[in-house]
């Protein structure tokens, strides 16, 4: 499979679009279907596809294992941190209204927690994939 030209070029062509689609799903989640979970999986799908065509070493150069493993707790930290901001400002946990004025504060809060979700989901999905693949070696 390593020498299949069509597959390799086809994958190279499609990879940026997968990433673009992931970002679209992430940032357009307020207006259309989508959000951190879906975007996270799509981003991870990009890495998995890369590993399928170019081998896991290439994939791990783009998304090193140490990095994706750190992303797993990092996302939860971003999410919970957004919540703790509410606590520190004297409001309830996850009360986004402290982040700004009116509905904008809420929008900002939603943006932050969706980012947290994206990080954790993408990190976890890649880590899971790596864990399974490396077990087979």
């Amino acid at each position, binding site marked *: 499979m390593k020498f299949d030209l069509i597959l390799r070029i086809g994958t190279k062509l499609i990879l940026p679009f997968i990433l673009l689609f992931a970002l679209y799903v992430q940032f357009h989640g307020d*207006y259309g*279907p989508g959000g951190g*979970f879906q975007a996270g999986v799509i981003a991870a799908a990009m890495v998995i596809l890369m590993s399928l065509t170019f081998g896991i070493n290439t994939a791990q150069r783009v998304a090193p294992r140490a990095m994706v493993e750190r992303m797993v707790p990092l996302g939860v930290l971003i999410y919970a941190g957004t919540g703790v901001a509410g606590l520190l400002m004297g409001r309830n946990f996850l009360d986004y209204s402290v982040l700004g004025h009116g509905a904008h504060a809420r929008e900002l809060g939603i943006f932050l927690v969706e980012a947290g979700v994206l990080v954790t989901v993408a990190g976890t999905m890649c880590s*899971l994939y790596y864990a*399974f693949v490396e077990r087979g070696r």
Partner: protein
Amino acid sequence: MEAVHTLINHYNYVITIFLMVGGLYIVIARGNMVKKLVGLSIFQTSVYLLFISPAKILGGTAPILDPAYSVYSNPLPHVLILTAIVVGVATIALGLALTVRINEAYGTIDEDEVLEKDPEP
């Protein structure tokens, strides 16, 4: 006629229940662990339909607000099921990891064969 009417009105539920029974049966009856997990995910998926079906309003549209529409389906079940799907996949992933480890320790992924190798006291 009455019965047919009821059936059509509840067709979603009928299929949901069929999926539920089928999935549960695969989980309980199968010795193969991967197939068990597939059955488990079918069983869980049937629950998604159980939640989502009542959320639908005939003539309504997806709950993305737009001045052009006025009737929307209920968004809350969608949120719950989104959560449930993610939880389901997490469970399946963990189950598969355990299956891999069991295969390494026993050389099989059939529950009966594992039990033969390590009889219950």
